[in-house]
């Protein structure tokens, strides 16, 4: 029995009422319109994988019996998780990816020395534009929604079938609309916004839904802040996070040489499951306590928490703007005794810019370790693993049990400003406690 993806013609009569996400899905499925719950088969613009998810995808691709990929330009493989290779097995996995990419002629293959953390690298290389559909075998693929793309995490089998066919099946999501107003205060950033939101709605508060960000507050957010917010949409269980496209988005896309953007805007009468208003000026520095990203607290809601390690980096907060904030806090100061601070610029370009502008000097002179780009400690891979009973403040995105090492270690998620301040004081702190 062949499965057919039949457009539901009854619903198609109603041409409007689509969310931004639904419009992108409809366009890529060759449909006039779609409604929440509908199953569709859509063309994708980019298929992404890394060094731990690609090997499984390659196994499945071979099982499929495909001899070539659907489009050599529309696949990216970024060796970022256990690279520079942490052990023999990791080296074997990366080698398998390298050979496959070579055999298939995959253009966007990023190896040690060229690579960066995938979700910081792809925007920088101009590989995603507004209106695209991106599927990635990594849950934080939702990051590119900041650029007005429909972008979602999938598994390795979806990656394999995507590489072979250039298509993926989707169940059309309904959406939660976030209307932003006001602007962020000093030392408050996108990370605090998204931790606040996840704290409010829970780790399954947006399960299967789109998180659509709109309102006058959007234009007050930098592209970097939007990337951070969209990056953590998955931590609320969302299918995707997506921002309205504005001048800032278009300027960014032009600056990185991305393809011509296709801008979609939600219909005026689009239907949302709920609408949440966020006043950016009321957001405070927020920390997610172990062991769920929804365990959000603001200063004043907890007593002193002494820490052993600080990690500043990752696809969530490893961009230049993040390092700049951390350097502003740490300049001329010293990392506290008994604290290990690790700074990981997310791409080679960011690393170089940070070097040329004196940021790395600030970190090193403060007593922090500065690393080549890698996902490393974020997922408990390498480059900063925690021992039993240790605590880390990290600008990463997840703090489940054992996330950064021993099952009895703890991870506290925070912004670069809070992470940097905490490195100086040795306990979870705000920059105001450190800056004179």
């Amino acid at each position, binding site marked *: 029995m062949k499965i057919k993806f039949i457009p539901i013609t009854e619903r198609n009569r109603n041409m409007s009422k689509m969310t931004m996400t639904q419009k992108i899905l409809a366009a890529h499925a060759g449909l006039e319109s779609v409604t929440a719950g509908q199953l569709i088969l859509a063309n994708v613009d980019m298929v992404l994988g890394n060094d731990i998810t690609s090997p*499984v995808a390659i196994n499945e691709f071979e099982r499929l019996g495909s001899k070539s990929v659907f489009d050599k330009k529309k696949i990216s493989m970024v060796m970022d998780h256990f690279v520079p290779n942490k052990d023999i097995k990791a080296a074997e*996995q990366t080698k398998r990816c390298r050979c496959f990419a070579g055999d298939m002629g995959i253009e966007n293959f990023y190896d040690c020395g060229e690579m960066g953390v995938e979700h910081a690298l792809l925007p920088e290389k101009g590989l995603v534009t507004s209106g695209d559909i991106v599927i990635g075998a990594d*849950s934080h693929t939702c990051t590119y929604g900041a650029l007005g793309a429909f972008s979602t995490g999938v598994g390795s089998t979806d990656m394999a*079938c995507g590489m072979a066919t250039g298509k993926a099946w989707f169940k059309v999501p309904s959406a939660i609309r976030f209307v932003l107003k006001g602007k962020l205060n000093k030392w408050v950033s996108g990370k605090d916004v998204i931790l606040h939101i996840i704290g409010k709605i829970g780790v399954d508060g947006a399960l299967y839904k789109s998180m659509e960000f709109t309102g006058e507050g959007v234009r007050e957010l930098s592209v970097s802040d939007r990337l951070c917010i969209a990056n953590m949409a998955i931590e609320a269980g969302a299918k995707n996070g997506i921002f309205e496209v504005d001048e800032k988005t278009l300027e960014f896309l032009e600056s990185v040489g991305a393809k011509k953007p296709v801008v979609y805007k939600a219909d005026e009468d689009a239907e949302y499951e709920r609408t949440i208003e966020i006043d950016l000026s009321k957001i405070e520095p927020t920390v997610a306590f172990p062991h769920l990203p929804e365990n959000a607290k603001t200063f004043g809601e907890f007593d002193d928490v002494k820490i052993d390690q600080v990690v500043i980096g990752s696809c969530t907060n490893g961009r230049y703007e993040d390092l700049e904030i951390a350097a502003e806090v740490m300049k001329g100061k010293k990392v506290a005794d008994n604290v290990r601070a690790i700074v990981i610029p997310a791409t080679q370009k960011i690393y170089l810019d940070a070097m040329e502008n004196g940021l790395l000097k600030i970190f090193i002179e403060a007593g922090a370790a500065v690393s080549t780009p890698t996902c490393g400690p974020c997922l*408990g891979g390498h480059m900063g693993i925690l021992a039993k009973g240790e605590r880390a403040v990290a600008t990463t995105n997840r703090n489940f049990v*054992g996330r950064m090492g021993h099952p009895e270690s703890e991870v506290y998620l925070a912004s670069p400003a809070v992470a940097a301040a905490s490195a100086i004081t040795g306990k979870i702190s705000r920059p105001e406690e450190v800056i004179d």
Partner: protein
Amino acid sequence: MKVNGNAIKYGDNVDTDVIIPARYLNTSDKKELASHCMEDIDKDFVNKVKKGDIMVGGKNFGCGSSREHAPIAIKESGISLVIAKSFARIFYRNAINIGLPIVECEEAATEINDGDKVEMDFNSGVIRNLTTGKEYKSEPFPSFIQSIIESGGLVQAVKDGKF
């Protein structure tokens, strides 16, 4: 298609880091992954699980990473079915794609206890707790998804010409 076995029960938000920690992701070998399944939440799991056993979870089962290694480890360990109040979306998709049967049934997930003998008939969607005698009806999957699971996964379904 029917499955039956003993229930192994967990709580809410069972995440992919506890299902298969990242330190084991430098392999894609199914048996190796299965040998570390649930390690950071239940060291005993790999010793007690028997082929056919049924994993029971709360809400948001499988949240976190997209790592397909998670449902692979569960399936290879011998688990024949996962019943949960709700599934995280990437895990849900991955489980279907690799042919690991999953079902959302809030009542069953709440009332089934660790160690109960449970069976499920996929055609009728009925879950039967043989220990308590109670029956639960679950929402059947759309036929296209059933077809993928019955084929043993997405790749096989594509090879069989179902797409």
